[in-house]
């Protein structure tokens, strides 16, 4: 029986493997960048501290953002680098602050992004293997695949970004699709009395001034008037019912990866959508996972995605027999530009939760 210390040492070797640069970003970080990227939703899980000058700091809640920010700041954007890390992260849990140990890798600027994801999957598999977890349940999600479905689906363009924004948020997505279906059932409303836009802008500006708001601050009168028209246009721009049904059907597809991907391929051929690129990538990584862990079950869930819009191609989770999420990761190309990279940079990475691995091994 190998003890906890030796297993952690084995994990440390993985994040320092050949060609991987181990980094150790500061534990005290400016909280602003997390709020910038993820808003209040993620912000509520930060352990915050306020400096005397009013700047908010947080204890490191994860590794990816500081590592990527540093990579961009050093002017490396575009050059292939593999980073590894292992150390404590801090979160605000429901019952108070919690400290965990995370280990992981980030592969940035790699020439072959699919190979990079394979390497990330291999890392995750080995990290679990260090804890004798050889039959994890793997859950795959397709961000690029959903974006492709959305791009092909017939609907007024104004709705595409609004539907995309709700991907990874099943309740909000259901609510939106229900609302779209209902509004489709309604007869189109009689067009409101057309008002001249300049006139409407002036009307809004007058009301702002009368109510004591500064029209130059925050939302401008033109912006309010514009969106008022846009809202009318949205109400008139119906998403066809067959499209809503298709999206609902697509998002409900979940099961053994090969079967689920076959279903999606069948759906694509019925609707004449070209989904071949994302489907080929998913099948490839499914095969990689099968080769890495022949006993494990790999499922694909069409509605699965992290809530953060910077994830791009494929995302994954590895779960233990208890259902605990042991590893999470995927491709997140958009993060680089969100953090200031001026050229597109591919990115793939994952993190494992060390305490959960230890617990899983014991049970």
């Amino acid at each position, binding site marked *: 029986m190998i003890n906890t210390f030796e297993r952690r040492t084995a994990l440390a070797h993985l994040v320092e493997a050949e060609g991987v640069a181990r980094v150790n970003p500061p534990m005290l970080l400016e909280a602003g960048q997390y709020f910038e990227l993820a808003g209040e939703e993620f912000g509520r899980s930060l352990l915050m501290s306020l400096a005397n000058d009013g700047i908010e700091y947080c204890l490191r809640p994860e590794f990816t953002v500081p590592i990527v920010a540093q990579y961009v700041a050093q002017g490396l954007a575009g050059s292939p680098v593999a980073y590894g890390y292992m150390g404590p992260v801090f979160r605000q849990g429901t019952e108070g602050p919690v400290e965990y140990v995370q280990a992981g890798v980030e592969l940035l600027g790699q020439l072959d992004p699919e190979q990079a994801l394979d390497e990330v999957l291999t890392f995750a598999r080995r990290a679990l293997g260090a804890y004798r977890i050889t039959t994890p349940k793997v859950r795959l999600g397709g961000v690029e695949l959903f974006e492709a479905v959305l791009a092909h689906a017939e609907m007024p363009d104004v709705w595409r970004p609004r539907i995309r924004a709700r991907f990874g948020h099943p309740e909000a997505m259901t609510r939106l699709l229900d609302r779209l279906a209902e509004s489709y059932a309604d007869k189109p409303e009689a067009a409101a009395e057309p008002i001249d836009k300049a006139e409407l802008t002036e009307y809004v500006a007058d009301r702002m001034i009368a109510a004591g*708001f500064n029209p130059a601050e925050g939302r401008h009168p033109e912006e309010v008037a514009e969106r008022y028209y846009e809202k009318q246009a949205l109400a008139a721009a119906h998403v066809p019912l067959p499209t809503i049904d298709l999206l609902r059907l697509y998002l409900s597809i979940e099961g053994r990866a090969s079967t689920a991907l076959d279903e999606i391929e069948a759906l694509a051929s019925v609707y004449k959508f070209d989904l071949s690129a994302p489907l080929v990538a998913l099948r490839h990584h499914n095969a990689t996972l099968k080769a890495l862990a022949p006993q494990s079950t790999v499922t694909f869930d069409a509605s699965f995605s992290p*809530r953060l819009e910077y994830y791009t191609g494929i995302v994954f989770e590895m779960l233990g027999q208890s259902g605990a999420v042991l590893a999470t990761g995927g491709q997140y190309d958009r993060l680089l530009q969100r953090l200031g990279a001026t050229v597109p940079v591919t990115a793939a990475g994952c993190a494992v939760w060390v305490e959960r691995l230890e617990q899983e091994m014991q049970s």
Partner: protein
Amino acid sequence: MSNGLTLAIPSKGRLEEQSREIFAAAGLVIERASNSRSYFGTAARLPDLSIRFMPAGDIARELIRGGIDLGVTGQDLIEESSEDSEVSVLTVRSLGFGQADVVIAVPDPWIDVTQIVDLADVAADFRSRHGRWLRVATKYINLTRRHFAQHGIIEYRVVESNGATEAAPATGSADFIVDITSSGSTLTANGLRVLEDGVIMKSEAKLFVSRTAEWTPMRKAQLEALMSVLNWVPPGITTRL
């Protein structure tokens, strides 16, 4: 020092008056020691009961933490102070006053924003238009975050506001607010309008028992005795702690 129970009453304003009235009507006359500025009180019928006068927000926090045994405060403050209030406090009963709603209110001239979905839409592209996040002023940071998360609103920031929240949109420190209101007149006077589906929760004053306080058999007996004096709930409340 006795090891008796501690009951907290809001320390000022209508909430204090109404709390003392309703306890007096139930036969428990609460005296504020020496003068109205003291933070301690007594009830002649129950000499072992310590009474403390505290701000309603502190009462909510202390109930959750177990620093006091019972207290009168608003449901809104309990929900704000705890992710899962059922775990930390037990509601004895509603007291029939302090009714108010926690609402989302936007500048009335925002004629395009009538529901939460509009707000989600405005939030989504606010940053690209203005180079900053849409800001909501509130003292209900946790309630706001939880409610917005449920509605899939992600792109915003909270500006903490303690007092005169309704003025924040006019002064430019925030774009809209989440605040408590009973009649809505303060909001209207400040040019704000509650969204059609903008009621986050309905609140009122309640008597709560802390589940996290130390409940020895002796103290449980004291709680049952207090409840039988008040006669608001049937005997046996301690079995639910």
